[in-house]
């Protein structure tokens, strides 16, 4: 079964992101992954809940149309 896709998904601005990892445990579906040089939001599993956006200490996360 495929879940309905969210209207909005989180995107990260890698030029601003410091790879601190704060957003990972905040993500209910665990859609954010941290690899050595990359913070990746899995658009397919992001539910658009925005819980990662405000806590980012540098404002690197925002919402965009899915």
């Amino acid at each position, binding site marked *: 079964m495929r879940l309905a896709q969210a209207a909005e998904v989180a995107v990260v601005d890698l030029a601003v992101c*410091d790879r*601190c*990892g*704060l*957003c*990972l*445990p*905040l*993500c*209910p579906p*665990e859609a954010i*992954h*941290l*690899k*050595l040089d990359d913070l990746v939001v899995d658009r397919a599993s992001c539910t658009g809940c925005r*819980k990662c956006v*405000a*806590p*980012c*200490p*540098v*404002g690197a996360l925002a919402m965009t149309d899915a």
Partner: protein
Amino acid sequence: MPDVDVLVVGAGPAGAVAAWEAKRAAPELDVLLLERDRAVGAPVRCAEGVGDAGLREFASPDAAPWVARKITRVVFIAPDDTEVGVAERDVGWILDRTRFDAFLAAQAVAQGAELRVGTEAAELRRVVDGRWEVCARGSQGAATWRARIVIGADGVETMVGRWAGLDTRVPARDMESCAQYVLQGIDFDPNAIYLQFGDHIAPGGYAWLFPKGVGIANVGLGLVALKSDGRNARQYLDAWVARRYPRGARTAYTVGGVIVHTTIKQTWADGVMLAGDAAHMINPLSGGGIVNAMKAGRLAGRTAAAAIREGDTSGQRLAAYHRAWMELLGEDHLKYYRIKQALEGLDDDFFNALARTVNGIPQRQRTLGRIFAHALLKHPQLIPVAARFFM
């Protein structure tokens, strides 16, 4: 594929001590310590403060090269800038984490553990014989090890926890968003740490100055984003620094998350233990985590050694680690969490009034017990806070 007995992911204080203790408890074991970054201890995502007694369980800070300052005084600053000095002796230390973490990792290596920097764990796979395959990549190419026990000491973003199926998520109200500068050329007492509270300064958290030397300090803050006025942590910090230390040179900058919750419900799985920030083992009132991480690492390392010697690395066996941690500090964190919740109900006016009450106590008589007693008499709002502590 090489076999190891204990594979530790993350060479911070939790992981380095876990590797050190596992090897010390069972020298015949192969212990491998992986560090994602190319240097142990860098980048520093930490205010670097530790208490004296906890630190001394692991290493003597006297004249140690990994110490930046000895702290003998704490200055609380109320939202209205009223300062309250609490004089104590041997309060704690400000570490040089770059050197301190390297010192701990070197202890593990001296004990016989292998350390690999620039090596990031990329995948964890359970194999049929009950062991874990750990795939890693990094400066020396890709590699895979088969391990009897994996200790996840991989911080707030723990991937080991996820791969092992443990729930390491945290509600937004219990995440402190932190930003910090190293400031140079500013005026303060280099023997004191400074903590300022206030909804307009760091809502749901506090701002800090931790001295690294004369005129040099870690200056930062942590806040709960749900309580913010729309600004992020860095913007709150810029405002605080502009007001208090406008002439400071900002020579370094870092950000990070501090989980001010309680220990995750299950820190273990078959062949896996989580330690330190990865398991939310931070004091939820102070936000301090270094000594907690070392104590958890010690328990995890010893449990791993004993379990392998007994030939039983099942989750049921490793649950003993969780029980030992809860008894040592985890239960205390539940109490601190209740105090944190109670304090959240008090506003800036209360803290301004409390600061004046405490300043009415002669400086030399300001023990924490006396402050607490006076505060309870003058501010009955605190009684529920006290009650929650003893619940």
